[in-house]
Structures are given as structure tokens and as C-alpha cells.
């Protein structure tokens, strides 16, 4: 993926000496700054992954970090994903807080066993004696013209596993805050990075307090009254664009950014849908057994009498992720979300 790596050089090496104040950053750079802040704060935080050292990662998200923190804390690993996660588990047992980079979504599967049978269960297996503060960063989602295994959205597979937290930021501020909250979490966190949004810019308050909110609480991006658009990661931008289009039609859409799909902020979704009476869930992952199915079930049970229409889902199909030439037909577009809204209003 040399060409992609060249194309995706987005972060600069002129990092501030001490992060403070408010800056305009790309989402990728915001993650970079978040990791830098976490590493300065706690010397047990370390990064592991393929090509994350001198190269700075194929998306340059770790750019400059090995230069600042050294090879013992920013480790270029052998090319083996199970090995990355498995050794991260051992490092966590010794008191470290490893942040693993999986180069692309489709390459996480060699590590699937370590993540689902070990990482997720060791805290429970040892009755709480051993915590697993491991973060696994995964660039995911499509829209960048990648080859096979470079555009997938496997998050539901991990949300289905107890013991893991699964989050995905949609904007630079959340990316900056969430990576730090993920690193501070004593639980393992799958941190899915919307790769098509790496270059999107936004204002980031570098002094944001780090708590646990963004790992647990959804965020209302836009208030509305007629329909709730539920999204996370790369689909939040699609939801916002859809809301803009709906406003022109005189319809008021509320946009909810879930931020996490494990846990899922059911209360926030339910509160919104009780207000609007309509719910559309948008994600790039296939809708079949996806996060949208879980949300639809919860909303149906909790808001049955408030619903004006069935909960509808807009997302990927039950097919392999398509070739780059056709990925834009597969991905949930504004037009397809508008179609779903029309169907909801037809009830």
C-alpha cells in the first residue's frame, strides 16, 4: 500500500512542546496528539504495531512518537497481529498499558483469537485480579479506494464479545479525548478509527479533562424533532449531511453520535426516539446482525408506543466489501438515508 501511504501523509512533525490551548487538527493528528499526551502523562503507556516507528504508521498516526519516546515505548513489531495482541496481554500483566495498531481493519483477524478468548476474558478469568488496559487501534471503514481488506467495518464482531469496549470517534475533538480515555481505561478497548475521516479538520481543546464519558455516553450532535439519525464513526458526517438536506425539506432531524457500541447508550437513543417517534440507524458495516439490529430491538422494546414507524437501518450489504470501483454504491450515502427517512414518514 505504498501509494496509499504516500497519499495519506497528513501529520506534521512540528508538534507543540506541551499540548495546550485550542488548535485546529485533522482527526488523525488529534489521535496522534492524544497518544502523545497519554505517553507524557504515564510512562507505562507504549505503542506497538507494524511500521509505526520511523515511518509513523501507514496513515502517519504515530508520526514523531518514536522520535520523542524511543524504541522501547514505540515498538515496530514483527509482522504478526496475533503476536502483537498476545504480547500486549503479557505486557499488561507486567503493568504496562500497550496501545496496539492493527494496520487495516481486514488484518485484525489473525488476532481475533487473542482478542476474544484471552484479552476480553482475563479480568473475568482471574476474578478481577488482573486488569487488561490494552487499546487496539483499528483504521476501519471504506471510501478511500482501497484494495480488498482495506475498507471493512468489523466492529460488531467485537461488540458481541463481553469484556471488550468498542468505540469509534467521529470528529477530531472526540478522537483526541477518546484515545486518552481508552488508554486510561482498565478494560480493553477496541478503538475504531474512521479512516475516510482522518483528514477532516476540527477544533480541538488540548486541555480537555480526561474522564470516562466518551467511552460510555452518546452525544447529541444536532437537536431535532421529527426523526432521530443514530450513527457513529464515519457515518456521523453522513447523518449530519442528511440532516442538512432534510432541513431544506422542512424536516427536523436529531443526530445522535453513539461514540461507543459497547456499551451502547440505550438511554440516550430511547430519550431521542421518544421525542421524534422515528429512528434511522446508519453504519457502514453490514446491517445483517449489525449494531443497527441491536438498536432497533432496544428501541422497539422501549419506545413501542412512541414509534410512528419501524426502526430502519441504512448500511452495508451481506456481501464481501465491494471493489473500490463500486464501494460508493455499498456505503450508506445521504441519498440512501433520505430514502429511509421517506419510508419512515410514509408510515
Amino acid at each position: 500500500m505504498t501509494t496509499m501511504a504516500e497519499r495519506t501523509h497528513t501529520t506534521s512533525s512540528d508538534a507543540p512542546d506541551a499540548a495546550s490551548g485550542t488548535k485546529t487538527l485533522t482527526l488523525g493528528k488529534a489521535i496522534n496528539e492524544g497518544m502523545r499526551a497519554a505517553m507524557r502523562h504515564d510512562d507505562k503507556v507504549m505503542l506497538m504495531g507494524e511500521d509505526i516507528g520511523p515511518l509513523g504508521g501507514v496513515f502517519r498516526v504515530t508520526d514523531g512518537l518514536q522520535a520523542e519516546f524511543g524504541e522501547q515505548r514505540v515498538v515496530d513489531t514483527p509482522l504478526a497481529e496475533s503476536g502483537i495482541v498476545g504480547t500486549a496481554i503479557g505486557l499488561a500483566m507486567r503493568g504496562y498499558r500497550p496501545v496496539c495498531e492493527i494496520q487495516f481493519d481486514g488484518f485484525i483477524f489473525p488476532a481475533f483469537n487473542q482478542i476474544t478468548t484471552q484479552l476480553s476474558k482475563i479480568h473475568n478469568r482471574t476474578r478481577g485480579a488482573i486488569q487488561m488496559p490494552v487499546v487496539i487501534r483499528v483504521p476501519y471503514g471504506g471510501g478511500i479506494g482501497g484494495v480488498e481488506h482495506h475498507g471493512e467495518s468489523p466492529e460488531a464482531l467485537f461488540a458481541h464479545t463481553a469484556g471488550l469496549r468498542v468505540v469509534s470517534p467521529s470528529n477530531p475533538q472526540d478522537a483526541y479525548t477518546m484515545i486518552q480515555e481508552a488508554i486510561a481505561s482498565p478494560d480493553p478497548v477496541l478503538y475504531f478509527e474512521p479512516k475516510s475521516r482522518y483528514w477532516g479538520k476540527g477544533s480541538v481543546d488540548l486541555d480537555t479533562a480526561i474522564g470516562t464519558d466518551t467511552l460510555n455516553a452518546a452525544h447529541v450532535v444536532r437537536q431535532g424533532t421529527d426523526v432521530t439519525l443514530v450513527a457513529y464513526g464515519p457515518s456521523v458526517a453522513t447523518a449530519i449531511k442528511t440532516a442538512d438536506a432534510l432541513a431544506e425539506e422542512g424536516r427536523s432531524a436529531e443526530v445522535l453520535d453513539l461514540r461507543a457500541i459497547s456499551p451502547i447508550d440505550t438511554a440516550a437513543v430511547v430519550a431521542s426516539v421518544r421525542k421524534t417517534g422515528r429512528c434511522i440507524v446508519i453504519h457502514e458495516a453490514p446491517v445483517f446482525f449489525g449494531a443497527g439490529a441491536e438498536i432497533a430491538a432496544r428501541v422497539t422494546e422501549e419506545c413501542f408506543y412512541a414509534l410512528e414507524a419501524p426502526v430502519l437501518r441504512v448500511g452495508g450489504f451481506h456481501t464481501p466489501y465491494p471493489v473500490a470501483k463500486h464501494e460508493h454504491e455499498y456505503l450508506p450515502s445521504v441519498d440512501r438515508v433520505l430514502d429511509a427517512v421517506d419510508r419512515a414518514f410514509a408510515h
Partner: protein
Amino acid sequence: MTTTNGSNEAIPTLQLLDPQGNRVTTRGTKGYRDRAAALTAEDLRGMYRDMVLTRRFDDEATSLQRQGELALFAPARGQEAAQVGSAHALRPQDYVFPSYREHGVLQVRGLDPVDRLRFFRGSDHGGWNPNESNTAVYTIVIGAHTLHATGYAMGVQRDGTPHDKHDGTAVITYFGDGATSQGDVNESMVFAAVNEAPVVFFLQNNQWAISEPTTRQAKTPLYKRGEAFGLPSLRVDGNDVLAVYAATQEALERARLGKGPSFIEAFTYRMGAHTTSDDPTRYRTSDEEEQWRRRDPIDRLAALLRAENALDEDFEAEIKAEGDELGAALRTGVRALDGGSAVESTFDDVYATPHGVVAAERAWYEAYDAGDPPASQYAIADSAQGGAR
């Protein structure tokens, strides 16, 4: 000594004690013989005690399973020298990553015998706090824990632990012949090699991966797997507690001194079934079992101790009494294990910090269990539930 591994090829194997219990003097083994010679009669009696008690633990646990008190048990019979000999070379600060049959290692590490059966009772997924004994709980997914061992060793390196053959820290991981085919075991050696991590890969080649002989795992002797990754690698007679001890001590010291990982293949035999659910008569002959019975590791050490006047009737009676005490403690202790309350056992410690889904499901189940299930399974306030428009 040479042994064969599914072929007629002679394979160099370190042996310091022959099956009749005689000390063996072979060219090129002086360093190992010196290590064994440094063991006092008291040390050897300690190893013998641990081996006999490990076998007693096996017998008692197997009986408890037959009585329906354990869901399953995986006996270690035949592997006592490999386990006890290697564990006697460990120091308290060293960290152990066992597979699931290392009852002899746990015996030496001093783990509570009842705790060691919690997993097999079905009352616990683990059974003990690893940090209290520097011994991880059993891992069932074959070979997965070898990566944890390598990662832990990488952490030891980063801590700046002193390089000292006694006071340094080593990590050891136990796995079997079947596990050598797993990707994780091979990846763990890659990571250990390139990082020069202080970890010892201790393979117990007990000839059988459930029903599959070692010839289904490899066409070359298994210690060569270690060699291929650039690790100092050695095959030892796994039923010879002296050879196992000497080889493991050497490898652990190499690790504690910061000289990197090693690989040991202990060539041994699983005398019993894979687990209490297995039936070895379907895949191996009684002739083979008889051949290995004549190489019993406990008989071998007993013969040495007798020849060196280190085993008398009083000591044997003492161990017998200790075994009886162990048996009684297991029978009482195991029957008392219930895993705590259903709610706590299932919902506690899934996450270290509150997780909305688990919290809501727990609250719902507790209310359901109390005969008062709430309308919402999701812990949502019901005030607006009836808010039809």
C-alpha cells in the same frame, strides 16, 4: 542416550540419570552434571516428594471426577520429572505461564491444591490470583499463553530488572507437542527472538496431542523448532529429573542474565488419558504404554535415592502420610466449592469499570430472580414508556 521420534534417526538427548536410576556420564555434559551434582540429598528428596504428591493429586482428582465431583480432569501422570524438575529451577520472582496440565509445576509453586481444582470443578474459570505466586492461571486455548509469556518478558526487560543469574527475573512457559503447530507458539518465538526476551520455552513432548502422535505435528525433532528461530535449544530426557533440572536452570539463568530466550524439549510420555473424557485404547497400544511404564520418572528417582542412601522407610511413610492428608483435604475442599452466588459469579468482573449493558442485565436478572422482573430489560426509566402520542 538416543531415542527415536517416529523415525530411526538418532536424536541427541541430554540424560543424566538412566531408567535404572544410575547417574550417566557422557562426554560434553559436564556443565549439566555439575548442576545436578550441586543438588543435595535434601534437594533430591524435595523433588521426589513433589513428584509423588503430584501423582497422588492426579489419582485423587481422577477419583473425584469419577465420583461426579469434577466436571473434567487432565492428568499429568508420567510427566512429573519434566514438571517438578523444571519448576525446582525457578526462583520466586520468575513468572510461570502454564498450559492446563502442569499440576507438578503448581505443586512446586506452592499453590493451594483445592484452588488447583476450581477450574475442573466448574466453579471458576481460573482458580487463583496469579500475582500472589507469579503463576498465571491455566490457559485452555492451545498455545495462546506462550505469547503472554513473551510479552511479560518484554515487560521485565523494560522494567530495567537487574541482569543477575539469581536476582534477575525469568519467565517460563509450558506447552505440548500439539501446541508447537499453533501459530501463536511460533509467533511467540519470533517476538522473543527479535526482542531477546528473558523467556524459556518449555515443551513437554508427551508423544500424544489427544489422539494424534507427534508425527502428525512435525517431520523433524521438535527441539529444532526452537533452533530455527535462533534460540539455544536442547532436547532432554523428560523422565530424568536431573537432566530437566540442569537444562532448565541453565536456560533460566541465561534469561535472568539478559542473554535472551531458550527452548527445551522434554521428551516424556503422557501415561494416562488426555483427560477423563478420553479413551487412549482407541489410538495407542498397551505395548507402548508398558514400554513407558518401565521408564517411570518416579521409579527412576527413587532408584537413585536408594542407591545413594537418601530414601528410607521413615521418609516414604512421611510422604505417604502427607499424600493421605492431601487426599482428605481435596475430598473435603472440592466438595465445598460452589463458585459463589450465581449473580456474582456470572456478572462480577466482566469489566473492571461499570459497563451499561452488563449493569442493566444484572439489575434485571436480580429483580427477576427475586420474583419481581421490571418491565424494562435495559434499566431505562419507565416514566415515558406509556407516552403514546
